[in-house]
């Protein structure tokens, strides 16, 4: 003989019916359609984003490479002018002053 479970293991069909009445959602078909629609919308949006992501990332990498190359070039130029100043013991001329002198000479 099986002993009854200490915490009421038997299921009660009447209680189940009451719980269904309390918690069942209305219009199953409309709810399922709503979830499917949301799913389609989100998946489509994600796929669209993914379609744009690849060229977008490639463009960003290219821009980063170009920016890095330009930065490296700038640093090299600055280092070269500092070397000249050190070798000659002269301060590098201000670029505005140089342009002014050049224009004055031309006249």
């Amino acid at each position, binding site marked *: 003989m099986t002993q009854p479970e200490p*915490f009421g293991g038997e299921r009660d069909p009447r209680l189940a019916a009451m719980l269904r*009445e*309390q918690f*069942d959602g209305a219009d199953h078909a409309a709810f399922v359609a709503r*979830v499917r629609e949301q799913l389609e919308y989100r998946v489509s949006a994600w796929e669209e984003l993914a379609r744009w992501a690849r060229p977008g990332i490639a463009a960003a990498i290219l821009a980063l490479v170009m920016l890095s190359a330009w930065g490296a070039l700038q640093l090299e130029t600055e280092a070269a002018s500092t070397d000249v100043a050190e070798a000659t013991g002269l301060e590098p001329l201000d670029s505005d002053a140089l342009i002014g002198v050049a224009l004055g000479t031309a006249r």
Partner: protein
Amino acid sequence: MVRITAVSDVELARRAREGDREAFGLLVDRHAPMVRRICRAVLRHPEDADDAAQDAFLSAWNGMGRFDPGVAFSPWLGRIAMNAARDLRRRRRVRESEVIPSDTKSWTPGPDTAAHAALLRERMDRAMSELTERQRVALVLYEVEGYTHAEVAEVLGVPEGTARSDLFHAKRRLRPLLELD
């Protein structure tokens, strides 16, 4: 010909993991009643519960890659539904004391029993508001969905003994209501 309804949850979940939206749609159709009941048991508000149920399915879709096909799909989804309902409550501060309007009747009393049914419903509403959220969900999972104690515990994220205890106390509280007839 193989009827699509005969396809197991595991097979549909496997297809959904591979991005098959139709397979996931069938899982939605199959498990929506359970997910909605769990959300209603947590939130006690029909519109918020359906919003949470929808969130649960979208989370499940996003998390299909983490689903282990070796375990049952339904408790895994139930857990997601429970979390979605709790998240929504946190976000919206749901009116917990509000009583769910009875918009669906699973059984309709005849005219002679209408008053009795109304009384029963009113008592059920009151009894439900006296139960904790976990007790309500445990009752729904055990009595309506037919889960085992272990599965109820898994969804609730508590030890099996705690789930059994929740059920025991919930049923004890509802006993006077069930003895109305």
